[in-house]
Every structure is written in structure tokens, then in C-alpha cells.
């Protein structure tokens, strides 16, 4: 009853909860010799949602994903994908999923068209490859060899290959790692379209902005375990870090005076801006503007930073995500 009452306040979550799970992972263990890469990871991915595994490099995200798609044999736990047991029915799962791996490549001399046609032929169901070339803006590169493609084009081809079998469930391991901002934005659009098409997506990333932007729910992974799980809003709501006001001014203000502004609990000074931590951003801004006016200092820029997933990660682990 309590659960239902809680969910009524969050219609999106209520919708998610009612959806059947596309992926169910329970107590997953994966060791590499003496190294425990995954230590008891459990999560569900509901149909039609984008679920993200967020964590630093080496946290166990890739190992988890590779166990889910059958590239690695788990040392313990259970995995169910699209209603099939990952250990007992890997072929059924492979027919239904699409995946873009973190480190993958094709033969240098293969063309985009050849690669798509060949991979499409491996499946019982397949999408017309011309449609995929159009969808991923690769039509002009249909006859281009893999070695001549840019990083963004290679990544788009990897995503197109992941869709050749019209999969119910997509798994994307660090899909935008190493790409320039423009290519990253393009891929974000592609991933959003996948969700709009009704597909379920499980992705891993170490980019906080990417996780916040794309994912309906996120699991924060560190040292092989999930340390927090929920919607981005739920996770950020758990952060104890106060909001921050970041501003720059025409002259350097006296730091001692700024510390005494309304509700300020901390301050950081850098070369071109000052960051004030505050429990009441509104009061602090009013006080700050008055102070700057009094001191005849021109305010050049000001914005409020709410607590982010990075803050949640720091609070939970004591380190930054990209350390």
C-alpha cells in the first residue's frame, strides 16, 4: 500500500513499475582471476525504458553488460533477457537483442553496405539495410570502407549494426566514448529515437550529463557493486550537497565579505569565477547583488548549480567520477 501511495505521486515511475521487465539481473558475480569485477549486482530494466549504468572506468559496467549479452560467463547469479535465461538460451537472446560494444571493430576493407547486409543475414528477422543507412546518415558512405570512416561514422555504423535484427532490447556500452561533442549530440538523438520506437535500452556511461539526459533510471556502479539506483531526479534528491551560485564580476570581491552573505555555507574562488554554497539561493543572490552594487562591482555572469549526480557519487564514494 505504501509503495502504491508513493508511486501515485510519480506517474512516470508508476508507468515504469507496471511495465514487464525486459532484463532481470540478480546477484551477478564476475571474477577475473583474483579480481572481483562484479560483486552481487542486481537490477531490472522495464520494457521501453532507458536504463543507465553510471560509474568510473573499471567499475564493472562493461563486465556486467557483457554477462547480460552472453559475451562473458558469470561466476554467479542469474540473468534473464526478454524472458530467456542468458546461460541456458543464449541463442534466443542473441536473436532478440542488439548491441554496440565499447571496443569493437570491423575488417578495415569491408564497406558499410557489406557489413550491414552480412550481419542482417545472421538473423531470422532483419530490417532493410537501405533504411538503416538512411536512418544513421550513412547512405553516402554505403560503399566506403570501414578504415575510411570517422570515429562518429564508425559509431553510427555500430549502432546501425545493433539494429539490423530489429531488436526488442538494445545494449550500448559507452556509446559516445571518445567522440567529439557534435557526434555525441547526434548519437544522443539516435538513442532517444530508439526509445521513441518502443525499444528498451541498457547503456553504460561514465558521462554524468549523458546519463542525466538520456536515462529514465540510473544505477550508479562502483567497485563492482550498485551503490545507488533510481530516476535521475530521485538520485539527485538524495544529495546532501547544497545548491551553488557561480558568478563572475568586473573586479575581485573581498572573499571575507562574501562569506557573510545570507545563507552562504561555503565558498570557492577560482581565476575567473567564485562559487558560493548556499541553503537559500534566492536570499543569497539578493544579498550578493546588493553587495556588488555597494562596492561598485559589475556583475558579469551568474548561474545556479543544483546538486548533480556527480555530487551523489562523491557523497557515496568520497571520490569524483572521473578520478
Amino acid at each position, binding site marked *: 500500500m505504501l509503495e502504491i501511495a508513493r508511486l501515485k505521486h510519480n506517474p512516470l515511475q508508476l508507468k515504469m513499475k507496471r511495465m514487464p521487465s525486459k532484463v532481470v539481473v540478480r546477484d551477478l558475480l564476475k571474477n577475473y582471476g583474483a579480481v572481483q569485477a562484479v560483486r552481487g549486482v542486481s537490477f531490472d530494466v522495464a520494457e521501453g525504458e532507458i536504463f543507465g549504468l553510471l560509474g568510473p572506468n573499471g567499475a564493472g559496467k562493461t563486465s556486467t553488460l557483457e554477462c547480460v*549479452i*552472453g*559475451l562473458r560467463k558469470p561466476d554467479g547469479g542469474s540473468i534473464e533477457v526478454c524472458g530467456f535465461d542468458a546461460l541456458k538460451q543464449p*541463442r534466443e537472446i*542473441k*536473436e532478440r537483442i542488439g*548491441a554496440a*560494444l565499447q*571496443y*569493437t*571493430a*570491423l*575488417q578495415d*576493407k*569491408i564497406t558499410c553496405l*557489406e557489413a550491414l*547486409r*552480412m*550481419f542482417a*543475414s*545472421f*538473423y*531470422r528477422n532483419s530490417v532493410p539495410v537501405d533504411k538503416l543507412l538512411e536512418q544513421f546518415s550513412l547512405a553516402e558512405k554505403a560503399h566506403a*570502407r570501414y578504415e575510411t570512416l570517422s570515429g562518429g561514422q564508425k559509431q553510427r555504423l555500430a549502432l546501425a*549494426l545493433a539494429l539490423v535484427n530489429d531488436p526488442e532490447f538494445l545494449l550500448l556500452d559507452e556509446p559516445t566514448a571518445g567522440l567529439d561533442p557534435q557526434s555525441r549530440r547526434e548519437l544522443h538523438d539516435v538513442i532517444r529515437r530508439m526509445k521513441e520506437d518502443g525499444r528498451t535500452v541498457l547503456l553504460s556511461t561514465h558521462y554524468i550529463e549523458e546519463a542525466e539526459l538520456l536515462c529514465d533510471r540510473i544505477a550508479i556502479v562502483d567497485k563492482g557493486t550498485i551503490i545507488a539506483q533510481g530516476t535521475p531526479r530521485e538520485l539527485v534528491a538524495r544529495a546532501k550537497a547544497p545548491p551553488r551560485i557561480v558568478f563572475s564580476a568586473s573586479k575581485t570581491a573581498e572573499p571575507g565579505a562574501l562569506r557573510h552573505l545570507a545563507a552562504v555555507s561555503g565558498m570557492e574562488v577560482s581565476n575567473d569565477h567564485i562559487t558560493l554554497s548556499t541553503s537559500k539561493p534566492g536570499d543569497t543572490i539578493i544579498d550578493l547583488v546588493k553587495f556588488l552594487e555597494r562596492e561598485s562591482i559589475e556583475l558579469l555572469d551568474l548561474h545556479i548549480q543544483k546538486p548533480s549526480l556527480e555530487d551523489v557519487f562523491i557523497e557515496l564514494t568520497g571520490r569524483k567520477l572521473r578520478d
Partner: protein
Amino acid sequence: MNGFLQHLLVNFRLNFRYVQAFVFGYFVPVFFLIAFKGLYASEPPLMKEFGQLLTVSTLGGACFGLPVTLVTERERGVWRRYQLAPIATAWFVASLMLARFAIILSSALLLLVVAMGFGMPLPVRPFELLVAYSVSAFAFLSLGLVIAMLASSAGAVQGMGQCLFLPMIILGGVGVKIEQLPQWGRHVAAFLPSHYAVRVMSECIVKKGAGLHSSNSEFDLIALIAIGLSCCLISVKLFRWESEQKSTLATKAWALLALAVWVAVGLLAEYWKFNLVGK
């Protein structure tokens, strides 16, 4: 089946997009042919040596061409992507072998044309030669696959390939004719599949040859098929999709099984004295 055919077609096409494929697949065998012509002044030219020539060109493609390509692709992460496809490993192995077979067969045909240009008559039993050549190529390509599964890098392929290639060239009746070897060398040759390949193909090429219908040739074919089948099955068992995939105890046990079949063939040959010249 469609997936298998597409993979086969792509593999075949890709081979012709690499310069080194032309160099090692066509120019090097022709170079060997010219060297053999100079080395053995037999009449009609090259006829007695043509079995050796076909064996050396097949061995090169099998011991180096196939495994180097496979291991290099694996090191680059190409095979990880294939592992996600709902296709049995055996189909990939079959497709790789067939594509490579088509390539080395085209090289063999080129050798035949060039040899005939030097005055060699058409082999006496061309269709039986095709069967003998195919069985020999199957055995060597299977050996190449095992090398690819055991080697962790392209450098390791070179090392392992040389360990097989050189003994077969020197003691396996390829570079040096069996009758020119000392007695101990002939015993060693019984354990080298190249010996059976040269012998069975020569029987289909020369005028006095018995073709495939002699007990020697039948034994040679069975020996090559046994070695080929064992290596082929074992390479399916050992198939490595990525470089990080370490050899396990089971892997080593399977590799030992391939070696055991090989040794068994040699022991059988020794037992029945099939390996002696003129028998």
C-alpha cells in the same frame, strides 16, 4: 544458411582487397615454381615436382595466411562483434575455411597455367588431382585454424607456423624429395601430413601414377582426412573470439587430442610401412 553464404562471400571478397594477399597468394608460389624449375631439370618439366609445388603453396596459405588474418582481426576486436550473432561457431569456421580454400585453389590453378607455359603437360588424372588437392588443403587449413586458436598474436602465428612449415618443407617431402632423405628422415616424414599430400597428388599427376586407386593413396587420403577432421573439430572447440580469452586446461587437452591424432596417423603409417619409398 544465408548468414553462412554472406559471410563466405564477404570473406572471399575481402581477401582480394589486400596487397599482401596477392603477394603471398600468387607471386610467392609462382616464384617457388620458377625456383623448382631451375632446381630440378626433369622431363617433362615440373611434372614430378608439381605435387610438391601445390603442397608448398597450400602450406603457406594455411600456416601463415589464414591464421595471421584471423589473429590480426581478433586482436583488433573484429571477432567480438561476430560473437553476438546467433550463428553456430562451426558455420563461421566452415565459411573461413571455404573462403580460404577458394583462394588457394585459384592460386593452384595459376600455378598449373604457369607450369604448362613452361612445358608441363596437363596432369594425367585432373579430377582425381582436384580431390587429392582438396583433401590436402582441408588438412592444412585445419592445421592453420588450430594455430590461429592457440596463438595469441600475429607474431606467435609466425613462430608456430614456422615450427610446422619448415619441418614439412625440409623433411615432409616438399622441398627435398623423400627418396633423397636419410632413413631417419623418412620415418619423421611419416608424421608430417605434407608427405601424404605430396605423394597422393603426385600419383594423380605423373604418367605412371596410380591415382587415388591404390592402397598408398587411400591411406594418404584417410590420413589427411583424419588430421583435417580432428584439427577442424578442435578449432571449433577452441575458437577464440577475443585475444583476452585465455587458454584453459580444457583448451590444452583439446590441442593435445589433435596432436594425438597426428601421432596416431604417423604410427599407423610406420606400422604398415606405407611411408617407405616405392611401396
